């Protein structure tokens, strides 16, 4: 294994690792073909070369190993980028509220809160903003809470004509029914 290949290997390892990488673990990945000392040196050389050039990542020693971090000067841009990216995303909480509204509509916020065991007001607002759920009158009980239903946009996304076309969740998760349908 030449030193270029080793450096590339280390790069692949540190960029796919989820926690700090120790020279020992890399050595074991090469079946001990390369010793820990040699790997430690290669990592240090790699860290130094990344430090010199203008790079989007650097290697830092932390918690007994090495890990990749982004230099601080990119923070502003990264924050903006991830903010934009998250606009096309749905949190698990939002998906849960949407699933409850879809399968139990019309349903009130207190009912959603009760089922989820968590306050869902902020999530419901996000879903309202994204036009995935809508207000559909008030329930005639004490406090007259608003009722929620799914929207046209919701149906469009799931390729449905009307909310009644939503399949029974139990059935959908069973293979046989997918086959029969």
């Amino acid at each position, binding site marked *: 294994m030449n030193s270029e290949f080793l450096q590339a290997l280390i790069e*692949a390892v540190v*960029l*796919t690792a*989820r926690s700090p990488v120790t020279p020992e673990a890399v050595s074991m990945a090469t079946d001990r073909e390369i010793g820990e000392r040699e790997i430690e040196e290669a990592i240090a050389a790699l860290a130094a070369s990344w430090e010199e050039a203008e790079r989007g*990542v650097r290697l830092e020693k932390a918690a007994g190993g090495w*890990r*990749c*971090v*982004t230099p601080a000067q990119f*923070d502003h841009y*990264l*924050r903006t980028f*991830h903010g934009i990216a*998250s606009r*096309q*995303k*749905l*949190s*698990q909480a939002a*998906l*849960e509220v*949407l*699933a*409850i509204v*879809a*399968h139990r509509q019309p349903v009130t916020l207190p009912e959603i809160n009760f*089922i*989820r*065991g968590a306050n869902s007001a902020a999530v419901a607002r996000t879903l309202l903003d994204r036009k995935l759920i809508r207000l559909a009158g008030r329930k005639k009980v004490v406090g007259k809470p608003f009722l929620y239903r799914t929207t046209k946009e919701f149906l469009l*996304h*799931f390729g*449905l004509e009307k909310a009644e076309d*939503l*399949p029974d*969740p*139990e059935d*959908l*998760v069973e293979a046989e029914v997918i086959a029969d349908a």
Partner: protein
Amino acid sequence: MKNGAISGRVAAGSLHGFRAGPVILLGVEVNPDLADFIPLGPSVELPFFCGPLDLLLHLIRKNEVSIYDIPILSICDQYHEHVRTMQELDLEVAGEFLWMAAWLLQLKSKMLLPRTETEEGDPREELVERLLAYRRVKELASILHDKDLVRQCIWPAGIIADLDDEDVELDWEEVDLRLLAETYLYVMQRFAAAHPPPIQVIPLRYSVQDKMREIYQRITEDDLVPLTRHLNRRANPEEVVVLIVATLELVRLGAARAEQRLPFAEIYLRRGRRTLDEASFEPPEREDADEF
């Protein structure tokens, strides 16, 4: 020459691209480590076909005949021979293989009949069309297979930005009906786990002692009690359970004998060697009774 190059690759047997890999017996994928231990009788190894069209294409290729002019008579016989072997090997033959066998038989009989003027077209036409469509699928599947092998060796790289909040986020594009349904079921299961139904205390309606007394009296009076017939009159499972326990208890005490002549035959209860007095039917005193 572009076409020639592509056809060369196709003709070179990319349709057989799947055949390598684990030992595959007809219709059953066998773990290579276990293959040696599976008793198969005479060693018969058949290629794996993932459907009747797959098998038909194989036969056409093996016989080196044109897909547009299939010799139905001989292909039909070979197909049936193959399905018979599958059955002899005790392999589960999926219904679709038998359905194709029936279709081929029908085509064979049509081919044997003299063609009439009124009849339009070749009876094989539909089969040819389906084989062609399926061959295209296999071709594309073969390309995906090769890609799959290479792509499996690729790892997505990425580091976690410190500024990210760790909330799991889903790509809205990827949210489909199934994920929505799965999420709903997950939420409802979580709800059910957090709100277990209140435990209902149902008073026992039948006591073993009462039943012991009842059976004992019947044995004493009739001397012969058919147990199953006696049980069958009781629809309530709770009562049936108590009756069986009571019967076993009587047999244990020697106050009754149970007889069965043949397996699954009626069980008869007779008088036992012991005579019981009324006190024997009182519930036994429990040492810890005070604690409750």
